[in-house]
Structures are given as C-alpha cells and as structure tokens.
C-alpha cells in the first residue's frame, strides 16, 4: 500500500477493464514520472470526453452532437442498417470502407449469465427505426461468438414479421473472437459474403 493520492490513483486505474493490480501500479508510476504537460493533456482528454461525448439519439453510437457523424452524413444510404454491439465495432467496419448504410449500436449482446436480456439493450429503439418504412435491409454484425450469435438469432426472429432482407456477416470471421480483433480484409470479405437469414 502507498500513501493517499498514489494509492487512490492505483485503485482507480485498477478498476479499468483489462488492468490488473500490477499494471495499475506500473501506469501510476509512469504518470508520476511523466512531464506535467503530458499528464495535463491526458486530464484534458478525460474531461472533454466526459463533458462533450454522448450517444447519438438515432443509432446510439458515440457522438459529439445530438446525432453522430455517420447519421448526419447525407451520402449514407437510409435503406440499410447494420447492427453492432459496441461503438468500437462501428470503427472496425468503417475501416473496411465496404458499408455505405447506417448503424445501430445495441450497447452489448444478450447474455443471460450476466443478467443482460433484450430489454437492457437498444432493441426497442431498433424496432422503432425499422418500422419507419425506409429500411429494406438489416445486416446483423454482432460478434462471432456465442452471445453475438444468440443475439443475432433473437433479432432475426423479432424482425422476421417485418419482411426485411435480414443477413448475418458471413463466416470467415474467426469464431469465438471479438469483432474488433478481426483485420480489415477478413471483415471486408465477411461483408461481401453476408448470408441471408430466413426467419
């Protein structure tokens, strides 16, 4: 244990995802030894994120205005929605440059073991968007793991009666992984070869 401020910093860092007690200690001492201007930029970045970043009212991606950059872009088509779990998946798919439609960020995947059901995700909001009559195709790009597949099955069953073209990102994506770890080439190929789901 260290004294007051240092220990507080270690404790806070240790609460971040993927940061264990040893890493927390290493980062804390790195910050203590760093130039004060470097630390100042980090503090400013954290404060800006907290003050300025919110979630897009339409797609629930991170945004700096009411709507995100993609939803505001008139060149993006209105007829296709790609459903993803997290904002980081939007970034991964944007890197492929394969997709010209818009997104819908669920905020996670259905995971009963963690107590997360459909009502804990932006599913109702998705249904509302799909009912407006402009959308003709839904691409489900949840992670290629168990929760992602189950979420895809749930959504396919739910939107089935709407009569949209529903597809799932094609295999070729490594099963069991996180979408964010897929490289652009694999992810791009998965987009081209998406397969139709008949609910």
């Amino acid at each position, binding site marked *: 244990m260290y004294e007051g401020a240092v220990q507080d910093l270690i404790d806070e860092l240790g609460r971040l*995802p*993927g940061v*264990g007690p040893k890493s927390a200690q290493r980062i804390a001492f790195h910050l203590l030894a760093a130039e004060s201007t470097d630390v100042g930029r980090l503090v400013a970045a954290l404060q800006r994120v907290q003050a300025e970043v919110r979630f897009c009212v339409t797609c629930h991606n991170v945004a700096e205005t009411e709507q995100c950059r993609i939803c505001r872009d008139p060149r993006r088509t209105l007829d296709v929605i790609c459903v993803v779990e997290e904002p980081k998946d939007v970034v991964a798919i944007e890197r492929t440059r394969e997709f010209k439609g818009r997104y819908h960020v669920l905020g996670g995947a259905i995971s*009963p*073991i*963690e*107590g997360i*059901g459909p009502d804990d995700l932006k599913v109702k909001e998705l249904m509302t968007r799909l009912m407006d009559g402009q959308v003709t195709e839904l691409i489900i790009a949840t992670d290629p*793991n*168990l929760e992602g*597949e*189950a979420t895809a*099955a*749930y959504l396919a*069953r739910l939107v089935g009666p709407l009569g949209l073209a529903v597809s799932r990102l094609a295999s070729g*994506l*490594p*099963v*069991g*992984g*996180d979408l964010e*770890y*897929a*490289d652009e080439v*694999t992810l791009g190929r998965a987009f081209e070869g998406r397969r139709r789901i008949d609910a």
Partner: protein
Amino acid sequence: MSTTPQALYRDEGIVLRTQKLGEADRIVTVLTRRTGKVRAVAKGVRRTKSKFGARLEPFSHVDLQLYTGRNLDIVSQAESIRSYGTEIVGDYRAYTAGTAVLETADRLTVEEKEPSLRMFLLVVGALRTLAEGVKPAPLVLDAFLLRAMSVAGWEPALGDCARCGEAGPHRHFSVPAGGTVCPSCRPTGSAMPSPVTIELLEALLSGDWGRAEASLGTNRREGSGLVAALLQWHLERGLRSLPLVDRT
C-alpha cells in the same frame, strides 16, 4: 514464471462459463467427467488466431489437457468432442434455457475438483436434448432443474409429505418444506397448486416424456414457477439467467 514441473492431467468436460482475464485470456469453468468442476486459464483465447478457437465457449463438450496451477489450472490443449452451442444459439428459447442449465450446474456444484459424474451426465443430457430441438426447451430445463436439485441432495417431494413422509397425494405445497406437505405438517402460507401440475413435475423428474409433453400451458407455467421457487430457496443468491428464460 515458475519452471518447476507441473502435474498434467486429461479429462473431458462441458464448458459452463467463461470470464475475461486481462487483454486476451479467459478463465473457463468446466464441469468434467472425472475431476468435477475445474477453473482454468485459457491463454490468448480471445485473439482471432488463437489455437483454441471457439472450442472453449460455453456449451462446448471438450477433451482437455490441463496443468495443475496454484489457484487456477492452465489449459494446454483442447479438442472438441461436440459443440452443442452451434445448434443451441440458433434457437433463442434453447439458448436461454441452456444458459440456465449451465448456471445452475455451476452454482449447485459448490466445491471445485470434487467429482460429480451424475451432474456431468445430467448437463450433457440436457444440452443434447436442447440441441436436438425436438422437446420444448422450457420443459427440458425444468426436468434438468428438478434432477439437478435431486443430485445436490434436495430432491423435492412430489406426492408424499416432505416433512413426515405420509403417503400422498397431498394438496398443499411448501417451498421451505421442500414440496408437497400433509395437512398436519403444512406450514402457514403453503400454496395449493393444481394436482395436474404436481403430476407434470413428477413426470419431468422421472423422465416420463409422454406425460410431460401432453401437459397444458397453464400447468407448465405453474410448474416452472414452483421449480424456480424451490431452486432459489436453496441458493443464496438468485440465478441471473432464470428470469431471462424465454418460455413463450
């Protein structure tokens, strides 16, 4: 890192759950055939090029080689025997029921590395049935829960009195007493479920699928409620997955 030789052992098991560990690893909880419940680290499993692939996801039946560790064991090899997950995730009812099967098996197996062949076989049987998709998933789940409670030493009374053993059938049902109760033993606040519902639970416990599948929705719903109440009574914390089971 320690260089002392560690004991290597081999067993087959069902992956009950996985938890993220650090950047790319996972802790997997496996119910094995011979060793009982084992918690082990699978290194690098979340990377897309992992040698383990999807073999260590929940619902997987795997043949494992493990090193004994101080707190957690370490998975050195994993071969797939059968992945029930592939079929189960495609059917949302089976997925939510299956998740409740896995969580229950994990919670009812309190001690690690204490062999429980009966629980292992029950889990394999339930997952196989859910993957086949022929029997209604909620009934498969309730049959599993009743039998899993029996294996854990809490077989519910479904006829004779749970307290004094007087031959039934009895009309009253008490969750704290553990099932049906006779008029002289019945605590205040006992429920009076339909006798048909008790017959359904009895059919599920004994594996009489003909009778179970002939049951009506009202009795299935009432039965599920009783099973869930009995299970929650025995567990300190409630099951997270049980309220999310799709019984439509």
